[in-house]
């Protein structure tokens, strides 16, 4: 009755193997590494860069364990920090000719030491939370109202243009909060305005319109479009943050959306909050200026003369010098969107810009007065300007929709659009939460957490082995398997381990032993009531199962609620708590039964089981009677 079929043992063995495999990477520790990532949005890190890094390391007579391309960065692993520092210098020399205008960020980093074959299987160590490794944590709140205001403002401008195109006379278009308001003279105008909105502005909905003398049409953004605007604003802010944080050269920054309007930024290893904040808050700016077409300026572009007064010289992406006027026509603030696209007639790749109302007005005036001249779009990153593109103005451009075309490839159009978007924040942000944890405190937290789990586990193991003899040993093994599976699953999920997470692990182990105690007590009880050993084992496991299921499901309900409503440390706690309950059900019932079956299952004439003393009231009295 106590035998498992082969398939059950097969499952057990497979689960154990997978558990071992995915737990392993956590034991290898971390190796010093050099990380190369892009410093500018225009520079890409690819296989060629990896090759250059590998060569630079080799040329310096150093021996890298591995040079890998990982997403958007190249990482080279070394034996010790000594080689790491030398390698950083070598790579820096090879990749960055001019320190003032660095295309790449070369940073020191720590990488898992686990062998490549494990990494290839997807077995990577758990990610340690900031409280365990030290660093800075920010929570930023995006001002969605500002993003919506900006959008409504641009709709108001667009609507004004559309009404003019249709020759509809109105009493003015204005933004009233988050609605566009058009004053109309009569009912006919109201209908005409409504028709224009219905035809050309699918994202707007007319919410109320009056009739009579002072009739008004009030249009609002549709709820689904509002969501889209907010979503885009958040995404663009995240992209911009990515670009800015790259400058810090942080090893593994975490930039995540949280909820509808918040962004969490975690910078492990960074201690200088002031600098981090400075960079987070810095605006990469975009400026539109006119190219100076005078002969002196042309000469300066060729390098044959000095830059005329009132002008500045920047280079474009091909390295060509462009002399532009100092006067700024437009800034990135007036740009609401930039998307790659295609020209209707020629099917050439283009970049389509959308300007807000103020921007479109200025742009119309400038383009009307400067047909045939060149206009430069300059992006300032880290205080250095670069000409993104300098097209010739062909005609007056109104309506705030600007199309930049020229001899561009599709990729170039994509990159330019990205660059233009990257410069600006879609909506202002403010820091609403901030944490800094020193690196030594992080190391202390790890050792504290580790010790509390280890000592607690040891105490339970000693007690179980003494109290329940062989069954106690089996329970202890099941508990260890539970720890292993828990760690393996957390590593697989790439969950972030925090101190509350470790606490949850300790608590989960304390609770996990409950299932084993339930089973062992039940077996003893069956033996006390006179059941045969084999029957007692079977009945013990079967009867305890219903109880274990009920009690674990209720605990799981609590865990899931924590997961749903918790944030930060509570969430970290809840993840481990929930997974711990699941693994404990597996290890305490399925796995420990497997071990018991393996040990006792094949013995036909089993006289007794080693489960500690089984006291029988009857036996006690009988022995006393004999003594008399």
């Amino acid at each position, binding site marked *: 009755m106590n035998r498992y079929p082969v398939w059950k043992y097969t499952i057990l063995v497979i689960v154990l193997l997978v558990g071992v495999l995915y737990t392993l990477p956590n034991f290898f520790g971390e190796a010093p590494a050099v990380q190369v990532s892009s410093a500018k949005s225009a520079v890409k890190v690819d296989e060629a860069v990896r090759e250059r890094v590998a060569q630079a390391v080799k040329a310096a007579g150093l021996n890298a364990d591995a040079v890998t391309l990982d997403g958007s960065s190249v990482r080279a692993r070394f034996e010790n920090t000594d080689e790491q520092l030398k390698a950083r210098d070598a790579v820096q020399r090879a990749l960055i000719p001019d320190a003032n205008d660095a295309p790449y960020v070369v940073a020191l980093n720590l990488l898992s030491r686990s062998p490549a074959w494990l990494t290839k299987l997807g077995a990577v160590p758990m990610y340690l939370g900031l409280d365990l490794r030290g660093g800075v944590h920010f929570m930023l709140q995006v001002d969605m109202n500002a993003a919506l205001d900006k959008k409504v403002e641009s709709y108001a401008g667009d609507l004004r243009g559309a009404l003019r195109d249709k020759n509809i006379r109105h009493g003015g278009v204005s933004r009233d909060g988050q609605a566009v308001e058009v004053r109309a003279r009569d009912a006919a105008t109201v209908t005409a305005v409504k028709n224009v909105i219905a035809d050309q502005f699918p994202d707007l909905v007319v919410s109320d319109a009056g009739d009579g003398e002072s009739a008004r049409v009030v249009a609002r953004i549709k709820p689904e479009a509002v969501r889209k605007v907010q979503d885009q604003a958040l995404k663009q802010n995240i992209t911009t943050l990515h670009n800015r944080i790259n400058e810090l050269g942080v090893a593994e920054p975490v930039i995540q959306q949280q909820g509808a309007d918040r962004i969490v930024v975690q910078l492990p290893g960074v201690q200088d909050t002031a600098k981090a904040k400075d960079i987070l808050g810095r605006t990469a700016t975009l400026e539109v200026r006119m190219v100076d077409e005078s002969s002196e300026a042309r000469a300066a572009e060729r390098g044959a003369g000095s830059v005329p007064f009132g002008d500045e010289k920047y280079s474009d992406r091909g390295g060509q010098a462009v002399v532009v006027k100092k006067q700024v026509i437009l800034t990135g603030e007036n740009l609401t969107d930039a998307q790659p696209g295609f020209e209707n007639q020629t099917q050439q790749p283009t970049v389509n810009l959308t300007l807000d109302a103020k921007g479109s007005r200025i742009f119309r005036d400038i383009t009307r007065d400067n047909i045939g001249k060149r206009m430069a779009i300059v992006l300032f990153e880290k205080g250095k300007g670069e000409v993104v593109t300098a097209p010739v103005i062909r005609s007056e451009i109104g309506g705030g929709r600007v199309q930049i075309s020229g001899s561009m490839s599709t990729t170039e159009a994509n990159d330019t659009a990205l660059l233009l978007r990257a410069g600006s924040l879609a909506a202002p942000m403010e820091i609403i939460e901030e944490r800094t944890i020193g690196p030594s*405190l992080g190391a202390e937290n790890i050792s504290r957490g580790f010790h509390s789990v280890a000592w607690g586990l040891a105490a339970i193991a000693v*007690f179980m082995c003494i109290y329940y003899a062989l069954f106690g040993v089996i329970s202890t093994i099941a508990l260890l398997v539970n720890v292993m599976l828990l760690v393996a699953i957390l590593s697989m999920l790439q969950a972030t381990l925090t101190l*509350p997470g470790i*606490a949850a692990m300790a608590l989960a182990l304390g609770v996990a032993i409950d299932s084993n105690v339930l089973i062992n007590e039940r077996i003893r009880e069956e033996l006390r009531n006179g059941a045969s050993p084999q029957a007692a084992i079977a009945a013990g496991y079967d009867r305890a199962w219903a109880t274990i299921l009920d*009690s674990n499901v209720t605990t799981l309900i609590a865990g899931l*609620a924590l997961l*749903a409503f918790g944030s930060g440390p509570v969430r970290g706690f809840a993840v481990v708590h929930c997974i711990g309950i699941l693994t404990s059900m597996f290890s305490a019932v399925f796995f420990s039964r497997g071990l018991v079956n393996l040990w006792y299952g094949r013995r036909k004439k089993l006289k007794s089981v080693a489960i500690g003393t089984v*006291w029988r009231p009857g036996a006690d009295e009988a022995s006393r009677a004999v003594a008399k």
Partner: protein
Amino acid sequence: MEFFRIRRDIPFMRHALVLNAVSVITFVLAVFFLLHRGLHLSVEFTGGTVMEVNYTQSPDLESVRKAVAGLGFQDVQVQNFGTARDVMIRLPAQKGVSSAQQSERVMATLGADKAAGATLRRVEFVGPQVGEELATDGLKALAVVVAGIMIYLAFRFEWKFAVATVLANLHDVVIILGFFAFFQWEFSLAVLAAVLAVLGYSVNESVVIFDRVRETFRRQRKMDTEAVINHAITSTISRTIITHGSTQMMVLSMFFFGGATLHYFSLALTIGILFGIYSSCFVAAAIAMWLGVKREDLVKPQAAKGDAKDPNNGAQV
């Protein structure tokens, strides 16, 4: 080894009335302290700045307090935690002043005395709106846990058990909170997690006992409700004590080795475990008894048909 040699069922329910009165008094006291003193909420709930500063030599707290108060901060708390060389400074949130400015000013003042060797170990700033959200989210989580557990228990057992269990466990939770209010221990997010974990954990206890009650009702047809409950508690008491002992060992290990961060977390769990045993034996079972749990509530007609292994299954006279 065998700790529990129990010959007859222990009459737990005989003293139920007295103990329930004690429970009610403790509960009322806890509520009183909660209302009167309130919880000493951590910065996560209130918003503000917390700084952890480490000194090479144990500093004079009074002078630190003066130095910080000299910067114009109101309601500043300065206290030791962990060791005498670690100082925790709490500043309430200020309008118009960013956290960075706050912490930088404080550190500039404290670091001016070079001999003291003050180093910043941790800064935490939380805006008030985040705190408000955390408080409401915590209450939501509590409501969902209670509702979820009640529905599950009502489905698996009977509504009387669901009510009894939830009342018993809320009693535990309120008493833990009462302890935190009485001693003015810091109530942080980790403690909140512990309290909610206790809720799940202590339900565990009641479920194990009710499981036994149901089983005993099925087996022993002659016992009355009180005897059944006594029998159920007696036969699971060894498991109850051993399980809680093991969990407590883990929690004690966290208490002693986990450092300042896990200190109150493990304290909350300890109180939860002690009251968990008490409430599942005396409160939950007693409430179920007062609610008038009967055999018919648990032994459903289809269960009475017996199992297929029984050779007398379906036999009738």
